[in-house]
């Protein structure tokens, strides 16, 4: 996942090349982040995150902060979207445009993917930020607005849930 640390020296303007290049570099990864967090409309969430970033562009002093702001916004938007969909058992099966193709499903580990659905939203966020975005614990804590200790504990809990679920799956 590309970050924008190499463009930190650009001047901040309300729009322009800096924002445009950040959009080009990060839009797809932010959309994927929303998808991995379980959002049903990742495109919309990524777009909304950039709209909000655009409004705050002049106040962000460097692109590291801009990227962190984007990540935080995507996580928060995904969480609130999931809250709206909390009665998911009642939701209809819409044509899933983001559904993986049969070929791509074969690429991934279906059991691991299914097990992610057993996690709480916070546990899933921690794992996605760590194992997909490769963020360190401090960056995860900053993104989620929690203490580093909470990140460690949540990671351990999440891994335990996954390990247990996968063990059950293998017994079957």
């Amino acid at each position, binding site marked *: 996942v590309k970050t924008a640390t190499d463009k930190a020296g650009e001047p901040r303007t309300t729009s322009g090349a800096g924002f445009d290049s950040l959009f080009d570099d990060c839009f797809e990864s932010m959309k994927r982040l929303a998808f991995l967090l379980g959002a049903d409309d990742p495109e919309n969430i990524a777009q909304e995150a950039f709209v909000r970033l655009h409004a705050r562009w002049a106040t962000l002093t460097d692109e590291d902060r801009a990227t962190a702001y984007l990540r935080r916004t995507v996580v928060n938007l995904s969480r609130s979207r999931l809250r709206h969909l909390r*009665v998911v058992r009642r939701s209809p099966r819409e044509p899933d445009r*983001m559904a993986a193709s049969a070929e791509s499903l074969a*690429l*991934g580990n279906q059991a691991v993917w299914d097990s992610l659905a057993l996690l709480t939203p916070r546990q899933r966020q921690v794992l996605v930020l760590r194992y997909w975005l490769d963020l360190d614990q401090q960056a995860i804590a900053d993104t989620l607005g929690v203490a580093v200790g909470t990140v460690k504990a949540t990671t351990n809990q999440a891994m335990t849930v996954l390990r247990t679920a996968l063990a059950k799956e293998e017994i079957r």
Partner: protein
Amino acid sequence: MNDRDDLEDRLRATLHDRAHTVPRSQRPRADLDVRLVRRDRRRPFLMVAAAAVVIGAVAVPVVVTHRDEPVRQTPAATPPPPKWVELTQVTENGVDEQVGLSVDPDDKGWCISVRTAGAKPAPNACYGVPVWGDEVVPSRYITAVGVLGPVQGGGSTGSMLFVTAPRVDSLVVLGKDGVAGEVREVLRRPGAVYFFVRFAEGPMTSVHATARDRKGEQVDSGNF
């Protein structure tokens, strides 16, 4: 390699593989520009609206004083939407539940909600009312969502809610083999019209909707 490392590797590989199943957007920058234009358009509108209130407060007494003409009544504000419009009823695991539509007081969003007898409605899924017929993107005047998926112990339903632009007067929805859905207009608001559509045959994988205005002219059509 120990179990922890193995699980971490599997997790990392799974997330990366899954992330790559998300198709690239066709024209994300154009979509962003549309959103930014909408946002910027709303701000001046709000300022103009605020200014209009101030001017109205000053100008009306002047008119009354100097012309001595009957004061024209300002049109009554649009009444707020009803808190709940029932769409259908279902029985799940022996429990009777009502499924309804609730629209935000500002008409900018709406939810499909579920409630049992005596309880407050619980929002199931919420959506924003779109900006209809935006001139930047190809005009679209219809959106649709399924209302209910399979109901545990209660069979399946083929219910959808269509939300259209206010200029839409009628809607025809056809399922597979051209079978027509039963269309009921449940609510008409300044920002949108809400149609409940039910297929007796059950859920449809794809339907085709055609919206017409009062004169019978086609406003929009599409597959959902």
